[in-house]
């Protein structure tokens, strides 16, 4: 009985939170897509993503033709909710954002962080915040417990990522503090970065926290997590500037995914920390 009372309380509290977060009545109304988004209906929205970004956008091990992952599933749910058609277009990560800016694709949905710099070129709908993790070899031989410990160690980060920039900044700090600078390697594909650490060509690899945890969990004898940072980076979908209708559609759809718990469920499904979810919002510069 007491349990039931608690349950009711939690549900009520949840309902209040949801009601506060979404004052407008956000409901999935795919059948009204024609009226709401007349310019988008009947078109295939092209979503650019790199299918080598676990656990966000990856190939389905059971069917390589299929894309799965947290971002991929979330995108599917959002488009289903707003009643629009879309397709994934897979390319190397460094080519994704340029293709959206150029208008070759409509949006990029592949674990992209929000930065003011990027927001000058694209609009965002953000939905979670990023945790950054440091993947190190088992036993953390260089005793890396924070970014401050990375002076002078071989560091790896993805080409064109914020982690790459973070190492560059840190290296400057190291030099300013009279410590050795960071010899840095950038990898074009994430698996290549993992091999750098695995083969002792790099001491630390900085990437998405969920991925680091997954790697450490799946390969307990090879890797572990050196440290993690709540970098405060927001993660979102990037949409070509001027596509107001698409921005609105994705914003509305995302709100619904948060209010009906879809996003939270997907976070759990892919081993991501549900507390990483942030209230979705549209960001533009």
């Amino acid at each position, binding site marked *: 009985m007491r349990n039931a009372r608690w349950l009711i309380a939690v549900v009520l509290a949840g309902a209040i939170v949801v009601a506060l977060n979404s004052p407008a009545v956000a409901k999935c109304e795919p059948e009204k897509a024609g009226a709401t988004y007349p310019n988008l209906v009947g078109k295939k929205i092209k979503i650019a993503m790199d299918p*080598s970004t676990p656990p966000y956008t990856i190939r389905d*091990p059971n069917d390589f033709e299929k894309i799965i992952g947290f971002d991929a599933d979330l995108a599917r749910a959002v488009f289903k909710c707003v009643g629009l058609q879309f397709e994934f277009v897979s390319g190397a990560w460094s*080519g994704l954002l340029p293709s959206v800016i150029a208008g070759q694709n409509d949006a990029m949905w592949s674990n992209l962080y929000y930065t003011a710099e990027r927001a000058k070129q694209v609009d965002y709908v953000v939905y979670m915040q990023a945790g950054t993790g440091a993947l190190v070899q088992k036993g953390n031989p260089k005793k890396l417990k924070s970014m401050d410990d990375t002076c002078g160690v071989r560091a790896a980060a993805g080409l064109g990522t914020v982690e790459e920039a973070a190492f560059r900044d840190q290296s400057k700090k190291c030099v300013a503090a009279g410590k050795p600078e960071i010899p840095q390697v950038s990898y074009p594909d994430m698996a*290549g970065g*993992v091999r750098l650490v695995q083969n002792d060509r790099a001491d630390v690899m900085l990437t998405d926290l969920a991925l680091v945890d997954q790697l450490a969990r*799946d390969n307990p004898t090879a890797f572990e997590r050196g440290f993690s940072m709540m970098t405060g980076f927001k993660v979102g979908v990037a949409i070509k500037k001027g596509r107001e209708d698409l921005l609105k559609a994705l914003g509305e759809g995302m709100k619904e995914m948060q209010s009906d718990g879809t996003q939270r469920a997907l976070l759990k499904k892919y081993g991501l920390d549900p507390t990483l979810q942030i209230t979705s919002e549209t960001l533009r510069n």
Partner: protein
Amino acid sequence: MTQPRRWLLIVVIGGLLLPLLLVGCGNPSGGSGVPGRSLEDLSAGKRVTGDEGRSAPSATSAVLQGLREMVLYIGSPFLLRGTLLALQIASLAMAGGLVLGLVLALMRLSSVLPVRGVAWFYIWFVRGTPQLLQLVFLYDALPIVGIKLDTFATAVIGFALNEAAFSAEIIRGGIVSVNRTQAVAATALGMGPFLTLRRIILPQAMRAILPGMANDTIAMIKLTSLASVIFVNELTFRSQQIVSQNFKFFTVFAAAGAIYLLLTTVISAVQAVLERHFNLELDRSAPRQSGLARFLGIRWQGQPSAVPDPESRAADREPANLVAVVREPADLALSGAVMMRSSVASPNNGESGVPFVVCDDVCKAYGSREVLRGICMSVRRGEVVTIMGPSGSGKSTLLRLINHLDRLDRGEITVAGRLVGYDRVGTSLRPVRNLARARADARIGMVFQHFNLFEHLTALQNVIEAPIRVYGESHAAAVERGMTLLTSVGLAHHAHHLPHRLSGGQQQRVAIARALAISPRLMLFDEPTSALDPELVADVLGVIRRLADGGMTMIVVTHEVRFARDVADRVVFMDGGVIVEEGSPADVLGTPKQPRTQQFLRLVEREVGTF
């Protein structure tokens, strides 16, 4: 059969088959499994770890397991689709790149500076910038100006534009590797620049071009992986995607590598076949082997032996004395054929007293060097004129001006009353647009000091090239006439030999037959025996002599005093770009009036005396 080749073959094939064999015997159940299902198993959960190897039962079974996975990946539709995409892009881009590259190569060889400059700039720019950036630019920057190419088109165009720059240089290298005299000979036969390029230059350039192009093709197939930034999901990118999902980089990348190896092996084989095709040194009378067999080092037994060709039959009947063949019925054939054609080609046959070739105040300078300084000369129909004089006196240049291989600076030359390739504009001459046509219409045959036979064509093919390609004769008629001509110069049994298998004297006689095949009204000989061994000279001079007997109008530049004395109607002695003395052979050679002529003849006679 070469033993090393056989071993190489065994190693290559064995290397390719080994994984399959191991899979077959190492894992009986796995061999018959459905690939899709197995793929699912192997990519499902296992991560690459340090302890995986240690916990495995034995190293051997781990290797077998790895090989089995690799083979499954090689056969997976996901990777094969990527392979197909890479092939599609590479083949289309290669085709486009070749065409554009040929155009660029020709532009680079142009005599017009702006044309050359544009091609140079293009090649400089494209070769000098990273291809990755070119692709991104095409894909992501062109939409700004309203050109939106899709992924596939961008990749094809991007790689084609890039390949054009590289293949242009390879093709240009091939073209310049072909001796310029080949083009001169073709031009003298009335062949236009593009016909010459297609029929004469490119086939010979191919040998130099092929290895480079094979390199580029192989490189391109692999480089299509660059296009992953513009959303091309080819083989490498697809394998990277699998690896990022299951981290089995070793087996997946090994599979991708094996697929690439297979593709490039095919290209290497095609290269070998083509190289064999364009290899002139190969003895083609040997039993034929397919290019693939040659590449693999296999000789099939029981292949039909070479088709009995006419040359072997002709050779059977070939008497020991070549001259006898030339002298016998062939003699009649030669003069008969030539005479008939000559009369057909010149409608105003009756006026034999009218000058047939008229040179009036002909001047030519190369840079500041004046080679010809006001030559006036005429040749009557049926007359044989020999031009003699020291080297550098302008003899050869005069010949080249008569059939418009070179351009006149001043003066004019008419053949049968007509300018060759010039229009009269007021008092000056202007070259016509279609020079090749004009040369062909003039029907002037030319024989060169160094023969200039087309090296990639047999004797007969050399002879029939211009009749078919320039004058539109039927193949059968041209072959028949070509064989008659070759018979008349005593070379019927060499009709199917390439020039490099003939002696100098034989080559020169083929060259004469080639010049006669266009039914010339005038024959120009530019020191036809100067490059020959003394014992070969007689055969060639004999052929020329018989032409003279047949009534052919000829201008012969030569140092052969005795030939000039016997055959020429008139001797012209040139020195320093002017005619010093001319007259009958008896006068000019017997009692020369000019000291310069006397001096030259003394030198030549002494030289001849030493033989």
